[in-house]
């Protein structure tokens, strides 16, 4: 069962990838769905047994490698943290596989798509069940690869290729930090096994590396690694571009699972992070800033998927600052609920796009709610959950996070709370802006498109409905386990909190005005959006015209791409040009240009020795022999 949950997707990927051509597309598609469903059953059973019945396990598969004293084995670590992720990933992945059967029905090579999708799921499961940092890194790289393949799935599109490259490169930056963090961990603890690390944390609290406490440095490096994967401020630029991939991919990878790997990593490393207060403060500040920053951008974007992408970015910020203040449980809870409603929103958006004949610009939609009522309804549910309206899933987790930020009672906690509250307002605002612009008002699409607006097939609607059930229920069903009274038994030691600062306890003593405030800002955001976009549709244009500076600032995503272009890309290119010109003109005077040509020159030189004459070869051998003998006799 434990092994099955992880390896059924791989089996599915192999079947679809290698036998796809032979089986035919339909069989390949459905076989992956079948294997994913098996995995989901196993995953849910595992969740039941590990998390709810409290029986964590570690399944050792086999020894992987031994390099000197470094020894790794492949093993699956099933504690509550992993079980939550496994259950969630397999379930959502199954739904998304099912949805994709409908969504990708017109594609040319669906078996390739499904193979990638299953491969991704396998890698993600490898990541979350890892028992050591190396295996985690394997999964980490694996999901990166799968994500790259899937973003660039439509490789004929230049924009898709560019987006895939961008995602890959930005993730490499994060991975670099991750690897440094891993190296430092090994340097400090002498092991990369989680058990060994966690057991030895106490002994290494006072270790110092380059004048900085080792644990702090490890925490910061791992967080920077997590930033890359989870699109936090600074390394977030790839995520919106990643929406070039097919929509199910966006839902699975760039909303529900892969981007949350960073949060998972921080929670997994909680025993280390707890001893690194400065690193946690950095996590909090960056997370809070991301939450706010991404929400502001979300308010002015026009691409339906990009709005949701920025919203994802923003919600990830919430999770990070929850972890930063020490509320890993709340972070995981938000991760869990978010997976459902964000996947729902993305799939709903996909359904809209499908209906609108692949139109993604919300300015060209409108007035379609009667034609696609199911999609409309599920989008409402998703938005309500996202905005944190009571009794929907997001309400419980987001409230807990905001309360925790206040209850932490620190400066960064307050900063996080303020950012979080403002972001909550903005979240509600842009969600309803999206809803109203997409579904209400006069149709702004051309006549031809409007005629073709149709509800999606059943195979796409079923996952939507199931996910909306999740978006409604996961909150109040699981709140007691994740953050409520049953939490201690539920987590069963998978997450470590310093006894000195018991955040779970503090959570219950948060001021009462916090939830009220949260509800108020969310509802006022909704009302404002309805007011502006529903009844006074000319206002937004006027506001944009009145304040062109801020508007353009937001529309251009705070000029992050331009900034990076200016700071990194351009100077690098200029430097290269400089080196090339100077090196060409002055340093390697007379040599053909560039390092490559230098290599080519060296190559020509060595090849010239290769005359083809036996005598000169023999002569070279004798010379070599003489050199060797001389070296021997003189070197003695």
């Amino acid at each position: 069962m434990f092994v099955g949950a992880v390896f059924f997707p791989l089996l599915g990927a192999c079947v679809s990838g290698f036998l796809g051509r032979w089986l035919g597309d339909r069989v390949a598609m459905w076989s992956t769905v079948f294997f994913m469903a098996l995995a989901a059953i196993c995953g849910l059973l595992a969740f039941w047994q590990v998390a709810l019945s409290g029986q964590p396990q570690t399944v050792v598969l086999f020894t992987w490698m031994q390099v000197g004293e470094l020894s790794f084995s492949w093993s699956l670590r099933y504690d509550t943290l992993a079980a939550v992720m496994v259950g969630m990933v397999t379930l959502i992945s199954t739904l998304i596989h099912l949805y994709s059967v409908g969504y990708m029905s017109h594609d040319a090579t669906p078996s390739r798509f499904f193979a990638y999708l299953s491969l991704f799921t396998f890698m993600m499961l490898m990541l979350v069940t890892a028992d050591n940092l190396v295996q985690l890194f394997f999964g980490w790289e694996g999901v990166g690869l799968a994500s790259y393949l899937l973003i660039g799935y439509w490789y004929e599109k230049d924009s898709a290729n560019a987006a895939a490259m961008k995602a890959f490169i930005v993730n490499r930056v994060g991975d670099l930090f991750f690897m440094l963090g891993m190296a430092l961990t090994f340097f400090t603890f002498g092991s990369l096994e989680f058990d060994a690390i966690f057991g030895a944390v106490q002994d290494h609290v006072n270790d110092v590396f380059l004048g900085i406490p080792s644990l702090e440095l490890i925490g910061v490096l791992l967080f920077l690694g997590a930033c890359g994967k989870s699109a936090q401020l600074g390394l977030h630029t790839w995520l919106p571009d990643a929406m070039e991939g097919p929509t199910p991919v966006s839902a699975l990878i760039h909303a529900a699972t892969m981007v949350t790997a960073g949060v998972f990593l921080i929670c997994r490393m909680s025993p280390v992070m707890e001893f690194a207060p400065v690193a946690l403060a950095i996590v909090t500040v960056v997370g809070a800033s991301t939450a706010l920053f991404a929400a502001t951008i979300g308010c002015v974007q026009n691409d339906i998927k990009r709005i949701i992408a920025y919203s994802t970015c923003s919600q990830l910020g919430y999770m990070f600052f929850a972890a930063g203040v020490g509320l890993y449980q709340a972070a995981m809870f938000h991760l869990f609920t978010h997976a459902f409603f964000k996947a729902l929103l993305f799939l709903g958006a996909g359904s809209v796009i499908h209906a609108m004949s692949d139109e993604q610009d919300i300015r060209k939609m409108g007035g379609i709610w009667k034609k696609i009522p199911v999609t409309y309804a599920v989008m409402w549910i998703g938005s309500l959950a996202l905005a944190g309206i009571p009794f929907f899933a997001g309400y419980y987790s987001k409230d807990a996070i905001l309360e925790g930020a206040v209850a932490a009672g620190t400066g960064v906690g307050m900063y996080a709370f303020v950012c979080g509250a403002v972001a909550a307002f903005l979240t509600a605002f842009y969600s309803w802006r999206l809803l109203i612009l997409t579904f209400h008002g006069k149709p702004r699409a051309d006549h031809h498109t409007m005629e073709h607006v149709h509800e999606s097939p059943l195979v796409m609607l079923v996952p939507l409905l199931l996910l909306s059930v999740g978006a409604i229920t996961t909150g109040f069903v699981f709140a007691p386990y994740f953050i409520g009274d049953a939490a201690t038994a539920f987590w069963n030691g998978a997450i470590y909190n310093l006894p000195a600062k018991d955040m779970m306890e503090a959570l219950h003593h948060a001021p009462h005005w916090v939830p009220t405030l949260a509800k108020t800002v969310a509802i006022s955001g909704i009302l404002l959006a309805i007011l502006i976009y529903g009844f006074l549709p000319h206002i937004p244009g006027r506001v944009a015209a009145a304040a062109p500076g801020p508007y353009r600032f937001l529309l251009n995503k705070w000029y992050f791409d331009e900034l990076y272009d200016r700071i990194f890309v351009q100077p690098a290119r200029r430097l290269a040009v400089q080196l090339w010109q100077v090196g060409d003109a002055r340093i390697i005077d007379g040599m053909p240009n560039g390092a490559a040509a230098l290599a080519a020159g060296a190559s020509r030189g060595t090849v010239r020795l290769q005359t083809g004459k036996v005598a000169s070869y023999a002569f070279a051998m004798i010379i070599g022999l003489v050199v060797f003998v001389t070296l021997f006799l003189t070197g003695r």
Partner: protein
Amino acid sequence: MIAGLAFYFFAFILIAAAVMVVTARNPVHSVIWLIAAFFNAAALFLIAGAEFLAMILVIVYVGAVAVLFLFVVMMLDVDFAQLREGVQRYAPIGAVVGGILFLELLLVLSVWRFAPDAAALRMAPMPEGVTNTEAIGRILYTDHIYLFQISGLILLVAMIGAIVLTLRDRPGTKRQDVGAQIARSSAVAMARPELGEGIRREDILRPLPPPAKEAPKPVTHEGGHH
């Protein structure tokens, strides 16, 4: 004393002959010098008490190998002017490199020391009560049977190689075909001529000519090189 003098005499001739092998202008002369070198080496073996080896050297190397060399060299058409040109061009560097190597080897040989029991071994080159040939036989076929067998395989491979690289079935080569000879049915038949008449020319029975091929192929491809 006499043995010592003889050793130096033959050794000197051997070295001189070896130098002549390399320096002689005419390759035929080279081979003849080589034969001279073999003879002298055989003489050295004799002085060392290894008569069997000495005889083998003369029989195999002089009698077979060197003569074969001689034939090959005389049949080959080698352009000596071209060869010499290459030698002259590389001679200076070659001399320098060779000189260094030679000096180094001299240096190495200068540290040569005889083992304390070397003199005793030299006086008794073989076990008591065994002839020279027998001693070699023991070493070759008993102690070193493994190496001997491998050497045999090497020779076999050399033979295979020579056949593979040179043997060709040329079209038109005449070969004996035993099977066809035996199976031939229309042999010359006996005739009984009338007494006093002798046999007429037409009566001589000959094997029937093979039936003509019905449709000879326009151009047969004679590609049977192998």
